[in-house]
């Protein structure tokens, strides 16, 4: 609990807009209110409870910048990367864990990150690990279809909000090829137009038609996939374990 914390009889829950900036603005407010927040949540996850008060946080780029640059200086870049990854996770307690992790970091500096026996440090590092693991898996398992006109389209529904991460990965990889990645679970589109990348709402979006020779490449891939397995070593259990169905729900026609 920060020094000089006001102790009174109600819980204060900070409500922010879901953005990374908004989250850091909430941390700023909590620190300057000198009060341990009972929770930091987004509006849609808000549950009204008895004896709690709510404070709507106004997102401010300036506040966010001040918190994040101070934290970066105190905890180092690697820790901030971990914080960002944990923030993208779908875990409900992520904000509170990150808040406490940062407060510990302001006290201990870089040493905070190696304190894995601390519950919050452990939580943040586990969440970050989950997010980065899902990103790695998705980057391997996602499949694009080439559309009429040459742009590519990919549909996926990850557990965590990893769209910004995979968007960056494919934008760097596919250089001159424009593409759209559709997070069907969250209704978001990641768009790359060969210059810029941005994330927009998918409301009203209708994916364009697949190009004419798309089927032949899908078939060729399936043929390759079926050929490459060695019959004498067949091990469907291991295969399923390494390739959980949830990653493939959108690609059944080309995946096993």
């Amino acid at each position, binding site marked *: 609990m920060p020094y000089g914390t006001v102790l009174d009889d109600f819980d204060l829950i900070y409500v922010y807009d879901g953005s990374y900036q908004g989250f850091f603005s909430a941390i700023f407010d909590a620190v300057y209110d000198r009060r341990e927040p009972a929770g930091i949540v987004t509006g849609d996850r808000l549950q009204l409870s008895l004896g709690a008060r709510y404070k709507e946080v106004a997102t401010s780029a300036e506040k966010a910048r001040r918190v994040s640059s101070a934290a970066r200086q105190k905890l180092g870049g690697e820790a901030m990367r971990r914080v960002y990854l944990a923030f993208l996770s779908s875990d409900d307690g992520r904000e509170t864990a990150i808040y406490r992790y940062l407060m510990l970091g302001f006290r201990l500096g870089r040493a905070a990150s190696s304190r*894995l*026996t601390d519950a919050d440090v452990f939580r943040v590092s586990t969440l970050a690990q989950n997010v980065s693991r899902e990103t790695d898996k998705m980057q*391997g398992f996602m499949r694009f279809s080439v559309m009429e006109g040459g742009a590519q389209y990919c549909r996926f529904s990850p557990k965590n909000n990893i769209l910004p991460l995979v968007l960056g990965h494919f934008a760097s990889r596919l250089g001159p090829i424009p593409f759209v990645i559709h997070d069907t679970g969250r209704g978001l589109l990641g768009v790359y137009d060969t210059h810029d990348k941005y994330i927009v709402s998918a409301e009203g979006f209708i994916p364009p038609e697949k190009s004419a020779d798309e089927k032949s490449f899908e078939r060729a891939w399936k043929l390759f996939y079926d050929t490459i397995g060695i019959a004498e070593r067949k091990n469907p*259990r291991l*295969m399923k*374990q390494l390739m959980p169905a949830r990653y493939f729900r959108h690609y059944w026609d080309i995946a096993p």
Partner: protein
Amino acid sequence: MDTAEKLRILAESAKYDAACTSSGSDRAGRPGGIGSTSPSGCCHAFSSDGRCISLLKVLYTNYCVNDCKYCVCRRSNDIERASFEPRELADLFMNFYRRNYVEGLFLSSGIVKNPDYTTERLLEALTILRKEYFFNGYIHVKAIPGSSPELISALGLLADRMSVNIELPSESSLRLLAPQKSREKVTAPMGQIRDGIIKRKNEIKLFRHAPSFVPAGQSTQMIVGATPDSDFQIIRLSEALYKTYGLKRVFYSAYVPVGNHPALPKDVKPPLLREHRLYQADWLLRFYGFRADELLSEENSRLDPLLDPKCFWAVNHLELFPVEINTAPYELLLRTPGIGVRSAKRIVAARRSASLRFEDLQKLRVQLKRAVYFITCGGKYMYPAFKMNHDFIYGSLAGSSSMLPGILEYRQLTMEDSFDSLPPSPEEKIKCLTGQF
């Protein structure tokens, strides 16, 4: 013949090569080009046998002038044959890559006409990819034994990884089953690639744009179970290869009966457990500071089927245990069963700020199931009544099913193995641990 048909035939012939990793190269995307690589590699699917599919693994052609008895492509084998055109292969590959089906290309080939002619074809395909399509992703290419050094150098400038397969662990086996190959023919290109990599390492210090040469290093493959060579011979050879040729990886491939030579085993199942144990031993050589002669010896030349090589080493060196988590040096932590490279590093970092208890070890991702017999926290065992005893620890470790890969049933193993007493049941283990034995 259409491209898909060729793909089927040439993937069929390539599938016995174990190497399919895309790791070791770190290149971000380049403006105008397509492709990037990540140092940890990436799997894009897993085949029906549970192996990672990372690269488009195909042969350029499966016509071959050699007659290696263990190989599907041997001249005397009656199979469908096909051959790509360089551009045909490049186009197919780029179409797979942009759709994110694969992480890169793994191109190998049978030998048509002669080694140089074959290497020139591979070179042509790679040149189209790199210079015309500006492909910036991962390429693994086989060096064909016997091709001229200039061609191998040229290939090395375009590829991320190169490999020459040793195939058989001893010279005598090679003479018997691959009469056209010899150890020298294999090691010559290996030495050349090593020298190329070292040269580039020195050049980069002098000028920043020194052309990259096989940045992901070279690898090789050995077939396991086709010949009577022992595990000790195999891991000693691997150790020598890592040392003298600076290899990044040695792959082990359980022999799948594809030949009919009288010296080859017939109607056997591929020795998957043996392959698995060899990989475990290989990891110990590369990351855990073990030497081959610590794991096995002339007399004891076979990896234990019931225990992984690290546990096996530990139960035979009980004099070094238990290790105290809060004080043991990193090297000894690494050698403790249940503690891996990452958890050993976490322990060393975490114990600086607080003394560690058994509850904490779980958070540091230590496999307590295995580690519990070998460690103390604050001078105490997890179960106070525990006594160091070789047979008991051996039995408990061998009895826990998670020790065995899903590829073989535990019961099946005990039948074949001269294992005197069955390991204790879970109830017996608990009794023993709580001191009621």
